[in-house]
């Protein structure tokens, strides 16, 4: 299968700069995947293949790295990836209730994506924000000191954003 995707020129420039920062090409794989993720939106088979070909690394190696880390956006992840912290502090402050409220509102369990493709729900380990427990991370943003009302409000806001984006 020929690859039809490629980095935009701006990303390519960043990639070339990255290569100068690492002793070997392979060492630059993690940040290059980050670039790919932001350029392509997610890391699926064609994206991983593109990065492998670009960097002259076996595709299997790239696949192994992408699946090793949980912070890469793998293909099939919803537009909004809601990651609820479920480690000690958050758990004591009611992260389970946060998860069940989201499940109730969106109809998905942790590890699932809504059929519309807008939301993915995950339970994750400590996100390093114990002082503001319970908290969740949605894409790159933290939402802290959550009450169940905050959760409802967040979901409404995200839903509006997703649907708005679709219409626009």
């Amino acid at each position, binding site marked *: *299968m020929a690859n039809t995707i490629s980095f935009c020129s701006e990303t390519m420039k960043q990639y070339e700069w990255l290569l100068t920062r690492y002793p070997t090409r392979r060492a630059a794989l993690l940040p290059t995947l980050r670039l790919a993720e932001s350029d392509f939106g997610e890391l699926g*088979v064609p994206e*991983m*293949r593109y990065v*492998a070909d670009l960097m002259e690394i*076996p*595709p*299997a*190696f*790239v*696949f*192994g790295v992408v*699946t*090793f880390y949980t912070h890469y956006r793998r293909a099939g992840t919803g537009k909004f990836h809601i990651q609820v912290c479920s480690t000690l502090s958050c758990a004591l402050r009611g992260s389970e209730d946060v998860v069940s409220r989201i499940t109730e509102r969106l109809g998905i369990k942790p590890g699932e994506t809504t059929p519309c493709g807008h939301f993915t729900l995950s339970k994750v380990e400590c996100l390093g924000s114990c002082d503001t427990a319970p908290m969740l991370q949605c894409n790159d943003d933290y939402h802290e000191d959550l009450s169940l009302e905050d959760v409802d409000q967040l979901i409404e806001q995200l839903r509006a954003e997703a649907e708005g984006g679709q219409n626009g």
Partner: protein
Amino acid sequence: MAENQTNDGTVAMTSWQLNGQEVENPTGMTIMEAAKEHGIEIPCFCYHPGLSIAGNCRICMVESNRSRKPVISCSEKIADGLEIETESELAVSSRNSVMEFQLINHPLDCPVCDKAGECTLQDHSYEHGPDRSRFVEDKNIRHTKELGPNISIWGNRCIVCTRCIRFCDEISGTSELCIVERGDRSVVDVFPEIPIDNQLAGNTVDICPVGALISHDFKYEARVWNMDRKDSVCGGCSRGCNVEVETLDGFVKRLMPRENLEVNDWWMCDEGRYGWRHLYADDRLSQATRDGTALADDSATAALEQLLSESGPVAFLIDPFLTCEEMHLVQGLAASRPGSSVGGWLPEDGIAANFPSGFKISAAKYPNRAGAEHIFGDQVFGNDATELQKALVSSDFNTVVAFCGGHLSSGPGESWAKALSSTPTSIIFSVKSGPWLEGASLVLPATAPIEKDGTWINEDGRLQRTRSCWNPGTEPFSVELVRLQTLQNALGIRGRSLSAAGIFRELAANNDSFAGHNHSDLGSPGLLLSERPAGIAMDGGSE
């Protein structure tokens, strides 16, 4: 210069203590390798002598005076003054704990696992593991799927030693395999839609210490402890990879590479590995025929004798699959019929392959060309063959005896088939049916390479012993070695029949190229024809 070479060329030695004994080994060895030289086998999963050191399974931990924690003996090197304990309380309890960890998610499916009986996990569990598990939670479920046309993974059994991954990175250089996910979910996988399909892929199944990688070819075929094993040599190409042929009730079930650092290291190619299927293909011959009518095996030998006793000069067409012993018998026959002539045919070349590890697949598909050239002269496949073909086409010979072996080859080409059919009396030893049998007077079933007992000389000039996959007396027809001797006895040019070793003794006594060699000194790596075994024993082997 190697790490342990001193300036004066001797090997530098390191003194260290192994279980309280003062011992010496060449500098630079790992504890595991050095301990093995003193008869102490330290268990391992991820270590393989042919691969880089990964050090991830931790089963080889031993106690060291240089570390408060146990060290892994596969990567830790010996050093002067080092004191290693392999059976101390710390070493034993470390192994025990590692085994308990390895078994946490491993299913107890040995009764249906093809690896059972030759599984490192089973062996080490028996020897070093706890006899019960404290793990009461649910075991992890990981994927079971095809990774390529010949290989599947049973993910639940995988202990993530990465041997198969290192093999694809370092030996075949194809890098199809990787570990996906992490922690207790990690398992071997391929990139989506890039299956593992290289020419050496089958080796990953051999080196898998557990039953995670399974060969489709052998899946549910046999329990390994029920099979007979013979040390043979693959006849697929001129490399002559050392193989172990495993049979169940007389049928070949599997070929495995046999370690020979001079030829194939620990590996073999898939063409040779799965090539045994051709032995049972529809075109395989096992029945002698005279002018198209089936003959019993004894009558076939009698017919052969009758045809040859009446003949004048005979043309012999040999193939490069015959063993040196069979060639010696053919040469005896040729010598007894004045005016006879010998030529040989060569199978078509295949595609050569060189792998990063130095492993080679030869384009030349003739396992004993060198042997034939030492016995019949170096023009046997050259000028002699050209002359022979001309003579046959112009019907200069009344009788031809042809050998058409090689179960993987496409047989002698059209021009030879034409030459054979131009001869009034043609006697053909053939491993399978083909156009070269057209109009043959007598067709005799022939042995395929792994069914032969004798010696071959590979492309490097290495004389190697190959053994038949059949147990003596269970051959489905008279093999060439027996039939040719029976014929020689009947024609009065031989007094008694001998084993392959006996025939080889005759050959060594009569042919200077082979002088000094005998079967029993060949050992498993074989010998270069140019290097004579120490202490030349002219009376040869006793095998």
